């Protein structure tokens, strides 16, 4: 079995044809995952019941019933997604020892297909970071260059797929946490439309921005995994109702008009190699008959500032639940108040502390209007900019990240430098629209070939459009 060449799609065919069993498949991936993990640290735990899960899948397959494309497929799951009976920590010391008491809806859906969960994937603590360096389990390394970061916060998920330690993975994306590691590791990452996938049982960071989504080797695989996890869930009140299904099922066109926000993309601070690759990718799409058009999204440049107000505000609220009373760690002192302060002071890492404090600041009286309310207003302007832009174009394209994977430790001392790497990914979260990063080639740095990604954005619920254009680019790059 050549696990490097397998995809969900082809593995599924092999399973159906009984070329190999899910136990064979699972054990091949496990063996490679254990071996590679020593250097890469993509997994913080490899489950001890993988074989049992695979046996269950094999039983379903042998019964000859209609099976899902995910049946028996080995997956990595980000450590902020609950699997009943398994540890789930968001890679934070404060949740040390916490065992999930129920399944997240996405897990429930995947269990129903008899997919196989290989283990918990490393991540930035509480999904706060763009490099997987803030994990309490230590950083994940980029499989393409071990001295570099895999991106983040879903860096463990992306690395697990890139190192052939899983066929695909689940991640979460609040400001780019699926797409940016996808681009750094040379795999596909999809942030679905806000509300398309349930967040029930996924640890919340910024509730108006968070989405769960797939990381996979091919666009087709990302689509299969997305199909398996999407859908309305009454347990996530921002989950969408049946009305949107109509939009989603709309027939996809053959040729698209792709909008490029030129003044935003060709700005200072974007690596020249990234820009050259982006232009070359646009040419490839043009050669297929797609149209490329420069568009103006005049307020896009404020996205990052808006994001770094709204996200910490919501995160500081969401993380109030970690208090040493209900879950995980307790550091005792003499009063209840100092129990809270000691537990949180010890349990939260530096970046989490910084964002919780920043959130408290922008929400505090006297600053609320100047920061939070203004950010909400500008967010609405950005949303209308997108709405207007999509009257003229079907898709918007940008590079996924302004830079390729950076060195471990290179940006960890300067939070603002780290934040600036989110410039292209944050707007989709603010607007709630779907966006996907597709591998677009490599850039040579210091003798290593570092993967790059191209990001496509589409109107709400038009993931199908993203899959169509993504497949086109993929074929051109083969």
């Amino acid at each position, binding site marked *: 079995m050549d696990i490097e060449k397998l995809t969900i799609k082809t593995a599924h065919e092999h399973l159906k044809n009984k070329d190999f069993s899910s136990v064979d498949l699972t054990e091949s991936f496990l063996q490679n995952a254990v071996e590679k993990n020593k250097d890469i640290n993509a997994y913080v735990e490899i489950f001890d019941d993988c074989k049992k899960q695979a046996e269950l899948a094999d039983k379903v397959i042998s019964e000859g019933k209609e099976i899902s494309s995910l049946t028996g497929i080995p997956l990595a799951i980000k450590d902020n997604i609950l699997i009943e009976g398994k540890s789930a920590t968001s890679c934070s010391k404060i949740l040390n020892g*916490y*065992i999930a*008491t*129920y399944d997240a809806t996405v897990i429930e859906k995947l269990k129903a297909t008899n997919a196989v969960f290989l283990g918990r994937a490393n991540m930035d603590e509480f999904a706060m970071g763009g490099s997987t360096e803030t994990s309490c389990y230590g950083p994940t390394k980029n499989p393409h260059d071990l001295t570099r970061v895999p991106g983040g916060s879903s860096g463990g998920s992306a690395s697990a797929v890139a190192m052939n330690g899983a066929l695909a993975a689940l991640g979460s994306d609040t400001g780019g946490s699926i797409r940016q590691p996808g681009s750094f590791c040379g795999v596909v990452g999809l942030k679905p439309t806000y509300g398309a996938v349930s967040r029930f049982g996924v640890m919340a960071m910024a509730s108006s921005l968070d989405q769960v989504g797939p990381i996979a080797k091919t666009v087709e695989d990302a689509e299969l995994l997305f199909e398996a996890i999407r859908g309305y869930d*009454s347990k996530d*009140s*921002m989950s969408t109702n049946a009305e949107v299904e109509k939009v989603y099922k709309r027939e996809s066109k053959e040729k698209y008009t792709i909008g490029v926000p030129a003044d935003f993309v060709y700005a200072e601070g974007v690596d020249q190699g990234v820009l050259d690759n982006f232009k070359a990718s646009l040419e490839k799409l043009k050669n297929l008959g797609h149209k490329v058009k420069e568009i103006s999204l005049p*307020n896009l440049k*404020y996205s*990052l*500032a*808006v994001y*770094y*107000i709204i996200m910490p505000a919501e995160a*500081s609220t969401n993380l*109030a639940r970690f208090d*040493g*009373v*209900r*879950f*995980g*760690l*307790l550091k005792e002192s003499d*009063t*209840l*108040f*100092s*129990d*809270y*302060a*000691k537990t*949180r*002071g*010890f349990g*939260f890492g*530096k970046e989490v*502390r*910084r964002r*919780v*404090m*920043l959130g*408290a*600041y922008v929400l*505090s009286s006297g600053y609320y*209007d*100047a*920061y939070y*309310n*203004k*950010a909400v*207003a*500008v967010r*609405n*302007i950005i*949303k*209308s900019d997108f*709405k207007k832009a999509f009257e003229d174009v079907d898709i918007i394209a940008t590079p996924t990240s302004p830079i390729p994977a950076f060195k471990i430790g290179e940006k960890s001392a300067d*939070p*603002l430098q780290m*934040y600036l790497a989110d410039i292209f990914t944050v707007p989709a979260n603010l607007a709630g629209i779907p966006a996907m990063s597709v591998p677009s080639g490599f850039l040579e740095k210091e003798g290593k070939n570092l993967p790059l990604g191209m990001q496509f954005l589409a109107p709400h619920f038009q993931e199908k459009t993203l899959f169509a254009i993504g497949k086109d680019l993929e074929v051109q790059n083969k």
Partner: protein
Amino acid sequence: MIELKEIEKLEELSRIEMTLDEKKELQKDFESILDYVSEIQGVVTDLNDSSKQPLDPLHNVMREDNNANEEGLYTDRILKSAPKNEKGYIKVKKIL
């Protein structure tokens, strides 16, 4: 420039105990982050301007209070996640 006193107030609001060194470091980080995010200040001057209102106003999502879990179904499991519990309750230090 944000004062150390303000950082200490945030430390209290956030219920996060920190060392003096870290607070000073945060003071520095806050300066550059706040300076950066302040670029939005000029984009909107009037918060009541109707063109800056949401296209899709928020609405409440309600559900009937039915199909409750069987009583006690999750109690043991949830109590077990708490660092301290006693006789079916989560235990904390006395407040008054």
